[in-house]
């Protein structure tokens, strides 16, 4: 008798769902997190009206490799804009890129993450440097390199992540009416990390390229990259979020 990995009546197709429910657990991930500062004035163009941009804050480019997770192995990148919601600071998720259908679909359907498929590369550490690239529809629209220092970051990365709620705008189109979504929710999720290795870093360069399919170049092209970075190896938990 054949065995099926079935997830009934949670995600579609309902008789054999594409992905299981959260929490999603990630083991032995490695990532670079580069702090940048978007040019003042640019964020308000791309944040939903409920969010207030925090200028001169902590905007982030995050590229991660998950060798093992509840959704299988995949790579991911997040572009985060520091902002506040009703006075509470957090990071609005401008874009997430992934390279697996489970990660793409679960992220979009459960959390409202703005995910797109993308070719994501995160190099091993070579000469103390790590390079990450994002390529979509034949265009490498983001290319970043960080250089490691010989010290751990001066701020605990696990605490930093725990205190940076991810804000999202979840939009589900209406089957019958294109003029307004069937669902519009603001959501919040909070990641947690169990860190095995952490190294401080600086960003050597950030190159972005125009693509008609992605807004990243517009948002990042004039960003200040001299705000530091870090490299981390850790386990991650992504629990259920909440509707704001």
């Amino acid at each position: 008798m054949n065995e099926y990995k079935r997830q009934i009546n949670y995600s579609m197709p309902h008789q054999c769902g594409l992905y299981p429910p959260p929490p999603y657990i990630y083991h032995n991930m490695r990532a670079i997190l580069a702090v940048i500062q978007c040019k003042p004035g640019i964020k308000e163009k791309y944040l939903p009206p409920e969010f207030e941009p925090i200028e001169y804050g902590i905007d982030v480019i995050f590229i991660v490799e998950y060798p093992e997770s509840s959704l299988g192995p995949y790579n991911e990148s997040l572009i985060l804009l520091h902002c506040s919601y009703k006075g509470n600071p957090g990071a609005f998720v401008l874009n997430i890129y992934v390279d697996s259908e489970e990660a793409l679909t679960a992220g979009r359907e459960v959390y409202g993450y703005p995910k797109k498929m993308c070719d994501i590369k995160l190099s091993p550490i070579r000469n103390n440097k790590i390079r990450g690239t994002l390529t979509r529809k034949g265009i490498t629209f983001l290319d970043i390199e960080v250089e490691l220092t010989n010290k751990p970051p001066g701020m605990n990365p696990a605490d930093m992540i725990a205190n940076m709620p991810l804000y999202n705008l979840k939009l589900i189109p209406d089957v019958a009416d294109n003029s307004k979504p069937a669902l519009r929710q603001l959501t919040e999720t909070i990641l947690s990390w169990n860190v095995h290795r952490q190294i401080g870093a600086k960003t050597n360069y950030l190159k972005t390229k125009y693509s008609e399919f992605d807004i990243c170049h517009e948002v990042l092209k004039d960003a200040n990259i001299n705000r530091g970075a870090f490299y981390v190896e850790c386990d991650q938990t992504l629990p259920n979020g909440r509707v704001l």
Partner: protein
Amino acid sequence: MVKFADLKEDADRFAAEFCKALNENPDYEAAGKGWKGALLLVMKACGEIEDDLRAFMDLEEGKCKGITILAPGEDPPFEPIMTITGSMYLWRQIAFKEKDPIQSLMSGELILEGDTALAMRYARATMELANSAEKADRTILTKYDLGTGEE
């Protein structure tokens, strides 16, 4: 070698002017709204400086209530919410805007102990602290040979 007693006068002047500059900075007032508590800045001795310098900053709602330079071994008036430590050489770079404080934190040159949630919430206030330092008499940071920042 330069001891704390030699630094005290310049340090006190810097503290008084830094506090005044913070109180005259509307951007710091906006960024520091909601904050109540003390921040301890530790400037580690380097170069020809022999003693660490510690500035105890009593801050509330985007205003500076006072900055006290603590003598070696002296306890702060009350427990600071956050302590940020770096070499005096690095603090000079931050005060002269040659280094970004967030960058220094990420690279591990500055070390933050205490409430990280508050640090994330008041990231912009950190920038405004650096901006206000620019308006104070920074002789304390330029008068002596700080070497390369190594202890």
